[in-house]
Every structure is written in structure tokens, then in C-alpha cells.
């Protein structure tokens, strides 16, 4: 339990640090940090009862994207603004790195294992983000079409 709390706090700090690097405005830094923490909490939660990597990463990414969409809607900024710092805890940097190490050192077993895991994590991440942005785009287009009364917008 203590380990999980530490992980959440560290994820908040990692997202906060990257938010500074990505030039998120000072008043929004706290939301970026909270996003990282929320993502880690749900990641740990899904990890504890879903054995399939692609599923628990996709669900965590969906939560991260949802958080980014909601906060960016309140703050009137594009979703990407909070999405990038929020997704930091989910980036499979270590798996990708070990995959390349396996490739260069001709360690087939290491390469295969990490390549599969890394691909699953990346696909899961993308699916989570795409599903969320697809749904929010549809909602935005409908809202826009209602306000403007211009059905043409639906092509975008």
C-alpha cells in the first residue's frame, strides 16, 4: 500500500516536472501534476485485476485523456495541453529501450519479449486516446452544429 502511495506521489512529481519542461503555464501546473497522479491511480487499479496489458493501458489512457479533456474544457485550452504531461506515467520508455538493447546485442529473447509488451502498451495507449478524442470530437461537433445551426461542420 505504502509503495502505491509513493508511486502516485512520484507520478504527480514526474508529470509536474514534464509540465514545466513542456511550458505549461504556471497556474495550470498543479492540474498537470494531478493528472499524472490520477493516471497512476487508475493504472494501478486496472493492473490489479486485469491481466492483459493492452486492456489496462488502454483503460488508463482513456482515463488520462478524459481528465485532460475535462480540465482543458474548464480552462479553455486544447486537450493536448494537459494530455502530454498526464500521459507521462504511461509511456513505455523502459520497454522500448530494452527492446532496442535486445536488438543491438542480438538477444532475441529479450528483444521479442519487450517488443511485444511495448507494442501492446503503445497500441493500448493510442486506442485509449483515440476513443476519448473521437467521442469528445463528436460531442463538440454536435454542440457546434446546435449553436451555429450549420450541419456542414459534421464533415470534420
Amino acid at each position, binding site marked *: 500500500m505504502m509503495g502505491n502511495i509513493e508511486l502516485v506521489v512520484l507520478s504527480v512529481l*514526474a508529470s509536474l516536472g*514534464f509540465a514545466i519542461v513542456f511550458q505549461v503555464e504556471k497556474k495550470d501546473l498543479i492540474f498537470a501534476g494531478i493528472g499524472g497522479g490520477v493516471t497512476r491511480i487508475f493504472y494501478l487499479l486496472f493492473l490489479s485485476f486485469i491481466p492483459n496489458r493492452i486492456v489496462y493501458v488502454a483503460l488508463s489512457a482513456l482515463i488520462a485523456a478524459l481528465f485532460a479533456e475535462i480540465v482543458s474544457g474548464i480552462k479553455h485550452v486544447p486537450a*493536448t495541453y494537459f494530455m502530454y504531461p498526464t*500521459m507521462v506515467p504511461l509511456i513505455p*520508455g523502459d520497454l522500448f*529501450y530494452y527492446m532496442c*538493447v535486445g536488438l543491438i546485442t542480438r538477444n532475441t529473447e529479450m528483444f521479442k519479449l519487450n517488443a511485444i509488451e511495448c507494442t501492446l502498451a503503445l497500441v493500448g495507449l*493510442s486506442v485509449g486516446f*483515440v476513443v476519448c478524442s473521437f467521442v469528445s470530437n463528436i460531442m463538440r461537433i454536435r454542440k457546434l452544429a446546435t449553436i451555429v445551426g450549420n450541419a456542414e461542420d459534421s464533415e*470534420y
Partner: protein
Amino acid sequence: MSNKTNNRTETVLNFLVCLCREMLENGANLERVNISVRRICRCYRLKAVSVFYGGSVISIGVTDEKENYYSRQESVPNTGIHLYKLGKLNLLVHEIINKNPKPDTLMDMLYETLMVKSYSNSIQLLGYIVAMISLGRIFGGSWTDLLVISFNTVVLYFITMFFSRAKLNRIISNVVAMMFCGFSAIIFTRVGIAKNISAIIITNAFYLIPGIPMVNAVRNIFCGNEMNGIIEMVKVLLEVITIVAGLYIASLLFGADALSLF
């Protein structure tokens, strides 16, 4: 009248290509850029024929009301993500769509938008250190390992800044940066200061691994921009291979068993 229309179209197109360059440079995904271009084109009664991003070059093709074709290309430098600027650019797109300003004023509006405050180098470095220490702890580093990670982060920051200012290829910068990290991790572990060499190297590699382009590449493949996604993925792969190559050189100089990874 026809010349006037041509000038107008070219002015809008020049603006569009600069806007796209800025959006992509500051971290926008291609989907968003595509939507922005199409909406602005519609405001000025142009038809966006194609928007293609080839990793470092953006190309836009439009036709006007008389079906005359115009195109522009612009290189997109890799200077780093600036999300505040991206937010401002997004607001600019909305302002243009809502107010439909004269084409002559578009460039000035863009330059005005780009005049935003950024964090100083020291604050950015602090951000990197906080992020790297947190990731180092997540990867199982001890407190002394975190000290080494912080030291490496500072050096990595200056190495990448130097190569970026010298406009040298990212491939060279990655090899040099990771070679230094390898040396540093091996030396600090051999003298007994650091304990977990893998945690140090993976964390510092995280500094260089293009995580966001990696996710964007897969996202583009899923969203129907397959060619762009594949090009981005190849670019990401090349960058990661150079990171590993830098580390491999360090391990060769100290002996194959210097790093527990090899």
C-alpha cells in the same frame, strides 16, 4: 481582379504553412493541424486539397474558387514542445474562424501570438531534475542513484542545448549524450556511490527517448494518417537506436561486463 484573388490566396497559404509549422513544432498532432487548415480555408473560400507532414516538412495544397491550384512547403524544426504557445495558436485559429480578418493581417496576428513568455533555462532544468528524480525512484533507484541521475540530467541538458544551438543532428547529440551517461553510470557504480546501474541508465534514457512522438506516431497510424505515422515511427526508432548505440560505445570502452545490461 484575378491578380488580387491570386495574391489573397497566396497570402492565406503563406500564413497557413507558417501556422502549421508553429503548431507542429510546438507539439500539435496532425489531426488537429488538418482540422485547423480545413476550417481556415473554408473561411477564405479555399478548398484544402491536402495537408501532408513528412516528419520534418509540411506540405499544403489548396484550390481557390476558380479551381487554381497553389501549394507551399515548409520545414518544421525540432526545437521542443511549448504547450502554452500551442494553446495560444489554438485560440488564434478560433479567432480567425469567428472574425474572418483580412488576409493581410494574418501574419501579424501570428507573430503577436508567438510572443509568449517561456520558463527560463534554470526553471526548465529544475523541471527536468524533478521529473528525472521521480522516474528514477519509480524505476527503483536508491537516494545515491538519484544524485547520480540529477548530475547526469544537468550534463544531458547542456549537451542537448549545445547541439541544438549548433544545429547539429539529433542522432549525433543522442549518441554523445548517452555515451556520457554510460560512462558516468559505470564510474559512479565502480567507485561505490551508485548501486543500481540499470535504474540510472533507464531514467537518463527517458530524458532522450521521444515518448510523445512515439505515441503520436501510433495514433496517426490509427487515425488514418498511416504514411505520416510510419515516417514518425521510423524517426523515433532511429533516435532510440542512437541512444542505445551511445550506451553500447560506453560499454565497449569499459568492457562488455561493465553494464549489467550487456
